[in-house]
């Protein structure tokens, strides 16, 4: 399908809302969406969801011949795929700019930062090494793919265990998982990519949603682009691993500094969560609890047809104020009763409203046109 373009009203509205200190989903500038990590039954497979953005990662390994220039090092290969599942505008089996961008950033973050001990992946020098392949599949694209994909890569690499190998003379025996306990991958440090959206060159927004991402990278009304996306790669020791800017040039170095400080805190949080979930997963595996992706099936979206919270909520918007004004209006024209509609918008939690469908069978509406009656 062709790309869906952003309308000018959306663009102007979002820029105005952001400049006034709000965000469409009611978050603060440096607040992230909810992060969840779920592991599958195999080692090295996980689904990471950041709000509604969902990414599947799977690590697989095979024995290959090493590269000539690095005869004693294993190989790490990262492959990102965006299928039409992520969003309808993506085409199957086609590389887009976004895939290349994600792939390159992840390679920079995990290969070039040397976080994996590649030498431990060597079996026989110049002959046999392990090649790790990380497959990243984007399931749902609701913005900030890079952060979600990098957490998925990190979690799956840290979770992955390769089969044990013994050498006897010229022979190399690869043991199955039942014969010998598999070996975990050695990670020197845990780098994570954190993305920030920059609006009008001075506002820094962490974990941008899809619409925020597309607004800040597109040019504004007056022409000329003043925003962009800043990706910061950092590990748990607050060491910088990668810095990438997409969009307009920054003419204020303070904003980068501010991003680094925010990223440092966020990285610590993420790495702690990744480590904790892996330890939890390990202990439950030792207790022989069967883990499976079917555990992620919940009733969360079950009732979405009959009721669903609006995704838009502004933090200073108060439902009570609206009700007050509605009551006043009602008093003015009491005899005019509102038409009973099929859907009723009712305030549920503070700051949100729900559309609740009325129960009962749907009925036919009689439509009579005047001309036919004549």
């Amino acid at each position, binding site marked *: 399908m062709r790309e869906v373009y952003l309308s000018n009203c959306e663009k102007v509205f979002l820029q105005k809302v952001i400049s006034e200190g709000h965000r469409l989903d009611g978050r603060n500038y440096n607040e992230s969406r909810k992060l969840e990590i779920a592991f599958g*039954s195999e080692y090295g497979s996980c689904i990471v969801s950041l709000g509604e953005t969902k990414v599947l990662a799977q690590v697989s390994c095979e024995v290959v011949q090493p590269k000539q220039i690095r005869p004693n090092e294993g190989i790490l290969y990262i492959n990102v795929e965006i*299928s*039409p599942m992520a969003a309808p505008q993506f085409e199957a089996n086609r590389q887009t700019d976004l895939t290349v961008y994600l792939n390159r950033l992840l390679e920079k973050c995990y290969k070039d930062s040397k976080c994996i001990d590649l030498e431990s992946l060597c079996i026989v020098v110049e002959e046999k090494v392990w090649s790790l392949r990380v*497959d990243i599949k984007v399931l*749902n694209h609701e913005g900030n793919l890079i952060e979600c994909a990098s957490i998925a890569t990190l979690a799956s690499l840290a979770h992955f265990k390769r089969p044990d190998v013994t050498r006897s003379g010229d022979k190399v025996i690869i043991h199955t998982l039942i014969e010998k306990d598999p070996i975990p991958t050695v990670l020197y440090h845990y780098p994570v990519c954190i993305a920030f959206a920059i609006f009008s060159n001075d506002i820094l927004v962490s974990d941008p949603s899809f619409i925020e991402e597309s607004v800040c990278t597109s040019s504004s009304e007056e022409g000329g682009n003043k925003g962009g996306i800043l990706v910061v790669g950092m590990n748990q020791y607050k060491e910088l691993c990668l810095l990438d800017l997409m969009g307009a040039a920054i003419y204020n170095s303070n904003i980068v500094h501010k991003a680094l400080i925010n990223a440092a805190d966020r990285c610590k949080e993420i790495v702690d969560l990744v480590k904790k979930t892996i330890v939890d997963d390990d202990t439950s595996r030792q207790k022989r609890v069967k883990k*499976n992706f*079917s555990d992620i*099936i919940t009733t969360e*979206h079950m009732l*979405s047809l009959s009721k669903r919270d609006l995704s838009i909520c502004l933090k200073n918007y108060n439902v009570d104020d609206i009700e007050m004004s509605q009551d006043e209006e009602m008093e003015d024209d009491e005899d005019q009763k509102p038409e009973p509609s099929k859907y009723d918008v009712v305030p549920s939690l503070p700051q949100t409203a729900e559309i609740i469908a009325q129960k009962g069978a749907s009925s036919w509406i009689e439509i009579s046109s005047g001309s036919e009656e004549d």
Partner: protein
Amino acid sequence: MGVEVDTKEFKLKPMKCEFNFLSKSDGSAILSQGETVTLVSVNGPLDIKMQSQSIEKSTLEVLFCTKGGKPSVADRYKESIIKQTCETAILGSLYPRSGITVTIQELEDYGGLLSCALNCTCLALLNSGLAMRFVFAAVSCAVDELGNIVLEPTQEQATSARALLNFVFESRNKNLLTGFSEGSYSESAYEEALERCRAASDLVFTFYRDIISKYSNVI
């Protein structure tokens, strides 16, 4: 929302399903049958390129993605089976000059991946609201060494089996929609397997009905 399908005669693996797992797709479903899990997203009717448009009916595109590794011939085979089945089920003539894309993502494979993918596709199509002639249910069975028929074999049973048979039935007259098999088997074994699977498909249709009635209490 787990609904255990359990009768005395036929035992199918427990099924669990969730609708609208993905927010960007028009329809999506995640289904687990036993330990096998698949995720399907349906988008359509979509605006597509001029050269792939058809004036009579919608263009159906099916993509099967494995969990890891490179795409293989086996994936293309699964794709073509799912495509043929969907093509008959969807009332494509209602959406001329448009496209429908079905994307299937494998999450766990412990036997019966293809039938799980087919059932999940049907649920995702129901969720997307595309017009369909009928719903369909896939059931797999194996013929073991002794010639016995095992419904929904486990992975060990499937690898040691003499033949694997898969059937897809439609909901209206329980007619056979798609059938595919591997291995060698006798004609009588095929007939018996067909009848048993036909009877077992009832359980899948009941599951569909349960899940839909839970999902949309408006109807």
